[in-house]
Protein backbone atom coordinates (compact mmCIF):
# COMPACT_ATOMS: atom_id res chain seq x y z
CA UNK A 1 0.00 0.00 0.00
CA UNK A 2 1.31 3.44 -0.79
CA UNK A 3 0.36 6.48 1.25
CA UNK A 4 -0.93 8.46 -1.72
CA UNK A 5 -3.73 6.04 -2.58
CA UNK A 6 -5.41 6.94 0.71
CA UNK A 7 -4.62 10.64 0.53
CA UNK A 8 -5.90 11.05 -3.03
CA UNK A 9 -9.10 9.15 -2.24
CA UNK A 10 -9.49 11.51 0.71
CA UNK A 11 -8.92 14.52 -1.54
CA UNK A 12 -11.50 13.18 -4.02
CA UNK A 13 -14.14 12.69 -1.32
CA UNK A 14 -13.37 16.14 0.12
CA UNK A 15 -13.81 17.76 -3.30
CA UNK A 16 -17.09 15.93 -3.84
CA UNK A 17 -18.26 17.12 -0.42
CA UNK A 18 -17.34 20.67 -1.35
CA UNK A 19 -19.28 20.34 -4.60
CA UNK A 20 -22.25 19.13 -2.56
CA UNK A 21 -22.05 22.06 -0.14
CA UNK A 22 -22.05 24.51 -3.05
CA UNK A 23 -24.74 22.78 -5.11
CA UNK A 24 -27.37 21.63 -2.63
CA UNK A 25 -30.30 23.91 -1.78
CA UNK A 26 -31.76 21.87 1.04
CA UNK A 27 -29.99 22.62 4.35
CA UNK A 28 -30.11 18.98 5.51
CA UNK A 29 -28.28 17.93 2.35
CA UNK A 30 -25.68 20.66 2.87
CA UNK A 31 -24.99 19.18 6.32
CA UNK A 32 -24.77 15.74 4.70
CA UNK A 33 -22.06 17.01 2.34
CA UNK A 34 -20.15 18.49 5.29
CA UNK A 35 -20.20 15.01 6.86
CA UNK A 36 -18.66 13.67 3.64
CA UNK A 37 -15.83 16.20 3.93
CA UNK A 38 -15.21 15.24 7.58
CA UNK A 39 -15.08 11.53 6.62
CA UNK A 40 -12.46 12.37 3.99
CA UNK A 41 -10.34 14.15 6.59
CA UNK A 42 -10.58 11.09 8.86
CA UNK A 43 -9.12 8.88 6.14
CA UNK A 44 -6.16 11.26 5.87
CA UNK A 45 -5.60 11.33 9.63
CA UNK A 46 -5.58 7.54 9.99
CA UNK A 47 -3.39 7.10 6.88
CA UNK A 48 -0.80 9.52 8.28
CA UNK A 49 -0.97 7.77 11.66
CA UNK A 50 -0.02 4.47 9.97
CA UNK A 51 2.59 6.17 7.76
CA UNK A 52 4.40 7.86 10.65
CA UNK A 53 4.02 4.77 12.90
CA UNK A 54 2.97 7.20 15.62
CA UNK A 55 3.80 5.79 19.05
CA UNK A 56 1.07 7.84 20.73
CA UNK A 57 -1.52 7.07 18.00
CA UNK A 58 -2.17 10.79 17.58
CA UNK A 59 -3.78 10.41 14.16
CA UNK A 60 -6.33 7.89 15.33
CA UNK A 61 -7.17 9.88 18.45
CA UNK A 62 -7.69 13.01 16.36
CA UNK A 63 -9.94 10.99 14.05
CA UNK A 64 -11.97 10.05 17.13
CA UNK A 65 -12.17 13.72 18.16
CA UNK A 66 -13.31 14.64 14.64
CA UNK A 67 -16.05 12.02 14.85
CA UNK A 68 -17.17 13.38 18.24
CA UNK A 69 -17.23 16.99 17.06
CA UNK A 70 -19.07 15.89 13.88
CA UNK A 71 -21.75 14.32 16.06
CA UNK A 72 -22.10 17.56 18.04
CA UNK A 73 -22.18 19.55 14.80
CA UNK A 74 -24.99 17.43 13.36
CA UNK A 75 -27.00 17.77 16.56
CA UNK A 76 -26.73 21.56 16.66
CA UNK A 77 -26.97 21.91 12.87
CA UNK A 78 -30.18 19.94 12.61
CA UNK A 79 -31.65 21.84 15.58
CA UNK A 80 -30.95 25.14 13.78
CA UNK A 81 -32.40 23.81 10.51
CA UNK A 82 -35.47 22.68 12.44
CA UNK A 83 -35.86 26.12 14.02
CA UNK A 84 -35.53 27.87 10.65
CA UNK A 85 -38.00 25.44 9.12
CA UNK A 86 -40.48 26.16 11.92
CA UNK A 87 -40.18 29.92 11.47
CA UNK A 88 -40.03 30.10 7.67
CA UNK A 89 -41.70 26.87 6.47
CA UNK A 90 -38.69 26.15 4.29
CA UNK A 91 -35.28 24.54 4.71
CA UNK A 92 -33.78 25.95 1.51
CA UNK A 93 -30.54 27.84 2.05
CA UNK A 94 -31.25 30.41 -0.69
CA UNK A 95 -34.44 31.51 1.02
CA UNK A 96 -32.60 32.46 4.23
CA UNK A 97 -31.82 35.96 2.97
CA UNK A 98 -33.12 38.25 5.73
CA UNK A 99 -29.68 39.84 6.16
CA UNK A 100 -29.18 40.42 2.43
CA UNK A 101 -29.27 44.05 1.31
Amino acid at each position, binding site marked *: *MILNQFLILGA*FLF*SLGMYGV*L*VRRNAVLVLLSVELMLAAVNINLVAFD*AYLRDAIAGGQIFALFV*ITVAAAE*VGIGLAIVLLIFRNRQSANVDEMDLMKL
Partner: protein
Amino acid sequence: MGDWLSEVANWWFAAVALAMGYAAYRVVTSANVVHAVLALVATLGGSAVLFLLLGAEFVVWTVVLVYIGAVIVLFLFGIMITRAPLGYEAELDHPPKTKALAAIVAGAMFLLIGWTLVDAFGTEEVTASVTTVGDIGLQLFGRFVLPFEVVSLVLLAALIGGIVLARQDPVDIEDQR
Protein backbone atom coordinates in the same frame (compact mmCIF):
# COMPACT_ATOMS: atom_id res chain seq x y z
CA MET B 1 2.49 -0.93 -10.75
CA GLY B 2 3.09 -4.70 -10.88
CA ASP B 3 4.21 -4.65 -7.27
CA TRP B 4 1.18 -2.65 -6.31
CA LEU B 5 -1.21 -5.18 -7.87
CA SER B 6 0.54 -8.16 -6.27
CA GLU B 7 -0.52 -7.04 -2.80
CA VAL B 8 -3.91 -8.43 -1.71
CA ALA B 9 -4.71 -5.39 0.45
CA ASN B 10 -4.51 -3.19 -2.62
CA TRP B 11 -7.23 -5.19 -4.37
CA TRP B 12 -9.43 -4.63 -1.34
CA PHE B 13 -8.53 -0.98 -1.44
CA ALA B 14 -9.34 -0.64 -5.15
CA ALA B 15 -12.74 -2.29 -4.79
CA VAL B 16 -13.67 -0.25 -1.71
CA ALA B 17 -12.35 2.99 -3.19
CA LEU B 18 -14.44 2.56 -6.36
CA ALA B 19 -17.56 1.81 -4.32
CA MET B 20 -16.87 4.80 -2.06
CA GLY B 21 -16.31 7.12 -4.99
CA TYR B 22 -19.60 6.13 -6.58
CA ALA B 23 -21.50 6.33 -3.28
CA ALA B 24 -20.02 9.77 -2.53
CA TYR B 25 -21.06 10.90 -6.01
CA ARG B 26 -24.58 9.73 -5.24
CA VAL B 27 -24.56 11.65 -1.94
CA VAL B 28 -24.06 14.95 -3.73
CA THR B 29 -26.13 14.31 -6.86
CA SER B 30 -29.05 12.09 -5.84
CA ALA B 31 -32.45 13.66 -6.44
CA ASN B 32 -33.90 11.63 -3.59
CA VAL B 33 -33.04 12.78 -0.05
CA VAL B 34 -33.27 9.35 1.56
CA HIS B 35 -31.08 7.81 -1.17
CA ALA B 36 -28.45 10.48 -0.49
CA VAL B 37 -28.40 9.55 3.21
CA LEU B 38 -28.14 5.84 2.40
CA ALA B 39 -25.28 6.56 -0.02
CA LEU B 40 -23.51 8.34 2.86
CA VAL B 41 -23.91 5.12 4.88
CA ALA B 42 -22.12 3.24 2.07
CA THR B 43 -19.34 5.83 1.96
CA LEU B 44 -18.79 5.70 5.72
CA GLY B 45 -18.88 1.88 5.64
CA GLY B 46 -16.17 2.02 2.99
CA SER B 47 -14.06 4.34 5.13
CA ALA B 48 -14.44 1.82 7.99
CA VAL B 49 -12.97 -0.89 5.71
CA LEU B 50 -10.04 1.42 4.88
CA PHE B 51 -9.41 1.95 8.60
CA LEU B 52 -9.36 -1.84 9.01
CA LEU B 53 -6.76 -2.07 6.21
CA LEU B 54 -4.65 0.47 8.12
CA GLY B 55 -5.08 -1.44 11.39
CA ALA B 56 -7.03 1.23 13.28
CA GLU B 57 -9.36 -1.10 15.20
CA PHE B 58 -11.05 1.34 17.55
CA VAL B 59 -11.72 3.97 14.89
CA VAL B 60 -13.49 1.33 12.79
CA TRP B 61 -15.99 0.53 15.51
CA THR B 62 -16.46 4.17 16.42
CA VAL B 63 -17.28 4.99 12.81
CA VAL B 64 -19.76 2.12 12.61
CA LEU B 65 -21.41 2.90 15.95
CA VAL B 66 -21.38 6.69 16.07
CA TYR B 67 -21.54 7.65 12.39
CA ILE B 68 -23.57 4.90 10.78
CA GLY B 69 -25.54 4.13 13.93
CA ALA B 70 -26.32 7.51 15.44
CA VAL B 71 -25.56 10.37 13.04
CA ILE B 72 -27.42 8.77 10.11
CA VAL B 73 -30.50 8.16 12.26
CA LEU B 74 -30.34 11.82 13.29
CA PHE B 75 -30.23 12.80 9.60
CA LEU B 76 -33.24 10.64 8.78
CA PHE B 77 -35.14 12.30 11.65
CA GLY B 78 -34.06 15.70 10.36
CA ILE B 79 -35.42 14.85 6.91
CA MET B 80 -38.71 13.63 8.33
CA ILE B 81 -39.20 16.60 10.65
CA THR B 82 -38.30 19.32 8.16
CA ARG B 83 -40.57 17.60 5.65
CA ALA B 84 -37.83 17.68 3.07
CA PRO B 85 -39.53 16.41 -0.07
CA LEU B 86 -39.39 12.62 0.05
CA GLY B 87 -39.16 10.96 -3.35
CA TYR B 88 -37.69 12.55 -6.45
CA GLU B 89 -37.49 16.30 -6.46
CA ALA B 90 -35.70 18.67 -8.82
CA GLU B 91 -35.79 21.56 -6.36
CA LEU B 92 -33.07 20.06 -4.12
CA ASP B 93 -30.23 21.67 -6.07
CA HIS B 94 -29.27 25.13 -7.21
CA PRO B 95 -29.74 25.96 -10.92
CA PRO B 96 -27.33 24.43 -13.53
CA LYS B 97 -25.25 27.62 -13.78
CA THR B 98 -24.31 27.37 -10.10
CA LYS B 99 -23.67 23.65 -10.58
CA ALA B 100 -21.14 24.31 -13.34
CA LEU B 101 -19.32 26.87 -11.19
CA ALA B 102 -19.33 24.51 -8.21
CA ALA B 103 -17.96 21.69 -10.38
CA ILE B 104 -15.13 23.96 -11.53
CA VAL B 105 -14.30 24.97 -7.95
CA ALA B 106 -14.40 21.38 -6.67
CA GLY B 107 -12.41 20.08 -9.64
CA ALA B 108 -9.75 22.76 -9.20
CA MET B 109 -9.59 21.90 -5.47
CA PHE B 110 -9.08 18.21 -6.28
CA LEU B 111 -6.37 18.94 -8.83
CA LEU B 112 -4.58 21.30 -6.43
CA ILE B 113 -4.62 18.88 -3.48
CA GLY B 114 -3.85 15.88 -5.72
CA TRP B 115 -0.89 17.55 -7.40
CA THR B 116 0.50 18.69 -4.04
CA LEU B 117 0.18 15.18 -2.60
CA VAL B 118 1.84 13.48 -5.58
CA ASP B 119 4.59 16.08 -5.46
CA ALA B 120 5.12 15.67 -1.72
CA PHE B 121 4.73 11.92 -1.13
CA GLY B 122 5.24 10.25 -4.52
CA THR B 123 5.18 6.51 -3.89
CA GLU B 124 5.98 6.43 -0.18
CA GLU B 125 4.98 3.08 1.32
CA VAL B 126 2.63 2.73 4.25
CA THR B 127 2.35 -0.52 6.21
CA ALA B 128 -0.52 -1.37 8.49
CA SER B 129 0.29 -1.89 12.15
CA VAL B 130 -2.57 -2.91 14.37
CA THR B 131 -3.39 -0.46 17.15
CA THR B 132 -5.50 -2.24 19.73
CA VAL B 133 -8.30 -0.67 21.75
CA GLY B 134 -6.02 -0.99 24.78
CA ASP B 135 -3.32 1.18 23.18
CA ILE B 136 -5.88 3.85 22.28
CA GLY B 137 -7.36 3.74 25.78
CA LEU B 138 -3.96 4.20 27.44
CA GLN B 139 -3.19 7.21 25.24
CA LEU B 140 -6.67 8.69 25.57
CA PHE B 141 -6.59 8.59 29.37
CA GLY B 142 -2.90 9.43 29.60
CA ARG B 143 -1.49 12.04 27.30
CA PHE B 144 -4.81 13.08 25.75
CA VAL B 145 -6.91 13.22 28.92
CA LEU B 146 -7.40 17.01 28.86
CA PRO B 147 -8.65 17.18 25.24
CA PHE B 148 -10.83 14.17 26.05
CA GLU B 149 -12.49 16.03 28.92
CA VAL B 150 -12.86 19.18 26.81
CA VAL B 151 -14.61 17.15 24.11
CA SER B 152 -17.02 15.80 26.70
CA LEU B 153 -17.84 19.43 27.61
CA VAL B 154 -18.38 20.22 23.91
CA LEU B 155 -20.81 17.31 23.69
CA LEU B 156 -22.65 18.51 26.80
CA ALA B 157 -22.91 22.02 25.35
CA ALA B 158 -24.18 20.57 22.05
CA LEU B 159 -26.76 18.49 23.92
CA ILE B 160 -28.09 21.46 25.88
CA GLY B 161 -27.90 23.72 22.82
CA GLY B 162 -29.79 21.22 20.71
CA ILE B 163 -32.58 20.94 23.26
CA VAL B 164 -32.84 24.71 23.75
CA LEU B 165 -32.89 25.40 20.00
CA ALA B 166 -35.23 22.65 18.91
CA ARG B 167 -37.87 22.74 21.63
CA GLN B 168 -40.93 24.82 21.00
CA ASP B 169 -41.05 28.21 22.73
CA PRO B 170 -43.24 27.96 25.90
CA VAL B 171 -44.93 31.26 24.94
CA ASP B 172 -46.00 29.77 21.58
CA ILE B 173 -47.44 26.70 23.26
CA GLU B 174 -49.30 29.03 25.63
CA ASP B 175 -50.74 30.92 22.62
CA GLN B 176 -51.92 27.76 20.98
CA ARG B 177 -54.06 26.78 24.00
